[in-house]
């Protein structure tokens, strides 16, 4: 299996007033292509910071981050936007759908930022992403007309639509009841079976247990990897 994520001695420090916060104190691990990995840890352990770095929403203070063989840790803001658009799909705890847009328009959004794609291609790709999450029949509904589980499915379709190398899911079941949460986990499992690489941030042990591997974090460092 090829290595998708390779991070080495990643550190991140913030300046909060007079004090320096060490959010990450030298984190190293790899994720192979096609893996389904959970990232666990209590709040303040640095898992959100790590997730932001992996998602190219932020840059590390020190250390190295390679995504699919490309060093993405030192890219410009514009180049990171491109990596986010082409290589990464985000799934958030609070869904983060745009309320005024239909499900279909929400899913089309990442492709529209890709540039010169024909409108018909964008539409077709988005519909097929919605079919994959089983929501093709509700694509013209606004997020407010959908249930929580359905909203998260739309968000997953949005993450899938660009055919990204990596799906980053930040507490995807955190805002859902357990049964709906289970349905979302089943959907992620199914995507994993189809060869997707998924990194899932959670503090729910039951959710983490459904992945192949769990990375536990504490005080800005990975304390177990199994």
């Amino acid at each position, binding site marked *: 299996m090829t290595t998708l994520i390779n991070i080495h001695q990643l550190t991140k420090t913030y300046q909060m007033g007079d004090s320096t916060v060490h959010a990450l104190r030298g984190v190293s691990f790899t994720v192979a292509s096609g893996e389904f990995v959970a990232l666990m840890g209590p709040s303040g352990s640095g898992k959100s910071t790590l997730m932001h770095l992996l998602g190219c929403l932020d840059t590390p203070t020190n250390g190295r981050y390679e995504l699919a063989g490309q060093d993405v840790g030192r890219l410009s803001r*514009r180049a990171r*936007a491109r990596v*986010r*658009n082409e290589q990464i799909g985000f799934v958030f705890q609070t869904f*983060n759908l*745009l309320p*005024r*847009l239909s499900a279909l328009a929400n899913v089309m959004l990442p492709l*529209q*930022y890709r540039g010169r794609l024909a409108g018909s291609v964008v539409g077709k790709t988005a519909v097929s992403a919605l079919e994959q999450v089983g929501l093709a029949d509700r694509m013209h509904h606004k997020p407010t007309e959908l249930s929580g589980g359905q909203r998260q499915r739309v968000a997953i379709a949005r993450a899938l639509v660009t055919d990204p190398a990596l799906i980053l899911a930040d507490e995807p079941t955190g805002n859902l009841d357990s049964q709906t949460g289970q349905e979302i986990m089943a959907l992620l499992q199914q995507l994993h079976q189809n060869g997707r690489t998924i990194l899932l941030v959670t503090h729910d042990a039951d959710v983490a247990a459904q992945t192949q591997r769990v990375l536990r974090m504490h005080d800005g460092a990975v304390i177990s990897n199994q």
Partner: protein
Amino acid sequence: MTFFNTLRTAFNGIFSNLLRAGLTTLGIVIGVASVITMLALGNGARAAVDANFRYLGSDVVQIGVKEKIDQGEFVPVGQILSYEDGLEMPRQVALVDQVIMSIAGEGKVRHGRNVVDMPLLGATADALLTLIARQEVQPVEWELSKRPLPADFLAQGRFFTPAEVIAGADVCVLGHKTARDLFGGDNPLDELVWVNRRRCIVIGVLTELEVTNPALRNRTRPNESFYLPISTAIANLFDRPPSVVVTARVSDEARMGEARQQIIAYLRQRHGVEKDATGVYADDFELTTRQDILGAQQEAARTFAFLLAAMATVSLVVGGIGIMNVMLVSVTERTREIGVRLAVGATQRDIVGQFLLESVLISAGGGLLGAAVGVLSIPLAAGLNRGVALLSPQSIPLALGVALLTGLLFGLYPALRASRLDPIEALRYE
């Protein structure tokens, strides 16, 4: 993102809060509307000036009496400009080869039981030529490209001759409507009318005329006119000798300045004008040339342009601040949306484009609305300005351009602010 998608996104942004966007444009609407109306007023005034002075060729000097206001009335500051002053001018002033004189008065005109109170015009024999040169009026449905001859202005009979003018003959020429008012359907030719207490023979009737400039048509009544030889008019219509208006033609256009000095010297000598205590001649007459009018017009145009620029600037700033304010609120409200867009791969340029286009669309909407309001309020402005306001065609693109520029300038800061948001912070924003 393609332009079309950006456009759709910007439209969505506006329509999600249409009322707010509408209120925001108010400043721009008022600004653009006032620019268009002001330009129409200026344009109308210019057209009126053009119409009034077009006859003033570059080879003529118009001479009138200098007046002052005394107890609410215009009175001459010194001597009047008399008929004889004008009559002697070609003989006494080397560079003047011809003069045309006219005098306006009012009186009662009667035929049988029909009486009309109306303006009366004392004129020289070339009055119709002056009418043609002024181009203020033309025969009804006259083809614009064709230049009318004096005969085209006459429906019946003839105009008076130079000999009749010098002799002070009791003859008159009637306007189309005046003839109908006095004679009904009867033929007025060779009939007698009473002007004040004197009898005149009608020797001609003018054809029906219309004002050339459509914008001025409701202001003047070109068919109510009554022409008398100027000498007859002076003798009959006035208790005291009146001032005439003299239009002197200069034989050599290149020597206008010299001719002007000659006319001034001639009139100063005739009127016995002396230097006053400060060493300046206290002239009791005024000379006007085309050059003077053009100069005054340019001066007025400059003042007007300055006013307009000041007004446009104020509306630009007021409207622009309104837009900036609303866009800043909008950016704050939509922080999370911006975060999502950044997360799925929007570049800073995409975000700038989205918000900039939104502010430009708002200002363009305001500009269009303002243009409509401006055009519709032109008749109103015309009413307040005695009927002179003409839409200036280039004012609409100008005003729209100003509106767009406002949206662009004042939308820039909010758009840049939106694009500089940290995606992580933006996604966390509640």
